[in-house]
């Protein structure tokens, strides 16, 4: 037992120490040098504010709201982005038809869609979800497309001589599994972009709760310690989502790539 404890410390000692020192410096700088809770809340202030929102239960409703917005966006981006990417990657004509539209829409920053999101959906969860969707859908389309373009020809030919000749079967049994690493990478990039869009959408008043909304709301109230709590919370939730996704994908979907260098 003791051995294991020592081992853990030895293994993660540098990382833990670095974090502790960073927090300590933050506390000292805020408490002794800046001495202004508005300019730089200290670690202690942040912990205090954190306990307040945990006790009031606000943390749960806001996190949940943000996750709902995020889920709406991600589900919409999946159901539209992946089939579009597949169609473009597999059928040359589909690519020629869809590509110009995408190339025109893609450079528009997702946040520029906020006014239309509000006009179309009102101040609803769907409006926030729509902005997340716009941020997520392009990386997903493009990575799905790239993955499909890079399916090695020999796999397709091997499948054909084994009796798998219909487009639908080739897509399902060969192209999708072969493109999975690229699709998964696209989803990871998209989740990062989507998370940013989520905060911006909530800040712009698309919704009246959520983690992003709370940042703006508390800024109006000049409660910067709360702003910082919600900032950190956004970081942690984003990190958790990414870790969870990576774990799931690496363990379940991409076990076969274990030998390749990524």
């Amino acid at each position, binding site marked *: 037992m003791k051995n294991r404890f020592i081992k853990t410390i030895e293994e993660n000692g540098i990382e833990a120490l670095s974090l502790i020192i960073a927090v300590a410096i933050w506390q000292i700088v805020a408490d002794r040098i800046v001495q202004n809770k508005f300019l730089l809340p200290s670690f202690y202030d942040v912990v205090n504010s954190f306990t307040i929102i945990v006790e009031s239960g606000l943390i749960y409703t806001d996190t949940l709201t943000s996750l709902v917005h995020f889920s709406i966006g991600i589900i919409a981006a999946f159901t539209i982005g992946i089939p579009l990417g597949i169609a473009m990657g597999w059928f040359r004509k589909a690519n020629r038809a869809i590509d110009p539209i995408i190339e025109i829409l893609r450079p528009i920053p997702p946040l520029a869609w906020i006014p239309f999101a509000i006009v179309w959906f009102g101040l609803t969860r769907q409006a926030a979800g729509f902005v997340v969707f716009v941020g997520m859908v392009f990386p997903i389309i493009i990575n799905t497309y790239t993955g499909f373009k890079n399916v090695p020809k*020999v796999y397709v030919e091997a499948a054909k*001589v084994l009796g798998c000749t219909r487009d639908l079967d080739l897509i399902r049994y060969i192209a999708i599994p072969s493109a999975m690493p690229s699709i998964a990478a696209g989803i990871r990039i998209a989740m990062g972009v989507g998370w940013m869009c989520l905060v911006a959408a909530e800040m712009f008043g698309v919704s009246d709760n959520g983690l992003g909304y709370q940042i703006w709301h508390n800024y109006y109230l000049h409660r910067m310690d709360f702003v910082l709590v919600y900032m950190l919370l956004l970081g942690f939730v984003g990190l958790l989502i990414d870790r969870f996704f990576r774990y799931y994908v690496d363990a379940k979907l991409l076990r076969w790539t274990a030998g390749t260098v990524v």
Partner: protein
Amino acid sequence: MGRVSIKNVSRIFIKKEENGVTEALHDVSFDVEDGEFICILGPSGCGKTTLLRIIAGLETQTSGEITLNGVPITGPDPKRGMVFQQYSLFPWRTVIDNVTFGLEMQGISKAEARQQAEKYIDLVGLEQFKNSYPYELSGGMQQRAAIARALANEPEVLLMDEPFGALDAQTRNILQDELLKIWEQKHITCIFVTHSVDEAVVLSDRILVMTARPGRIKEIVTVDLPRPRCRTSPEANRLRDRVLKLLEEERFKK
């Protein structure tokens, strides 16, 4: 039963950019008997792989006809199994799932397909590795698994495109012997593309020597050596010498 008949097959490639025309195959005709082992040998770029791909149905001839048991070939079909030069196992499937792939495509239930696949995995000696992913296997093992995968569909013809080309010399010799054993056991027609004279002499009943591009049949050499063959016997050497001379003529013709 697998009789392949190739009649006056030509193949012309048209390059779009340069308005160029390349004739890869010119009026190729020959017959492969049921259960025969044929090697197609020729200088690189002579169209031997193209010919094999046309037989597989992965490419189409510009003119001429190819039939299997009298039926014209129009596209890929599991009756004609193929082993590729590059490693072609699906990396996202384990060895056994690769071997069952063709059976699943035929609509055979997963349990039954597995049972059948195991026979072929045993045949190529990969029992211990049936649940491994391709990246965990050596090159020789991957090609063995690819052979098992092609055989599991019980094809009438086995097409092989330099399957041992990427392997080291010793592994190649071992796999040649194993392939012959399987061929004798299964009485399957084999069409084997190679650029190695040694390989052709060890394996085949007849060697189809092709000319440089455009590929035509230069000569069909009958290998009349009893099996199992000794790689270094004087008869094998004489034959090798003869085939090498044929190939050399092609080299200096240009």
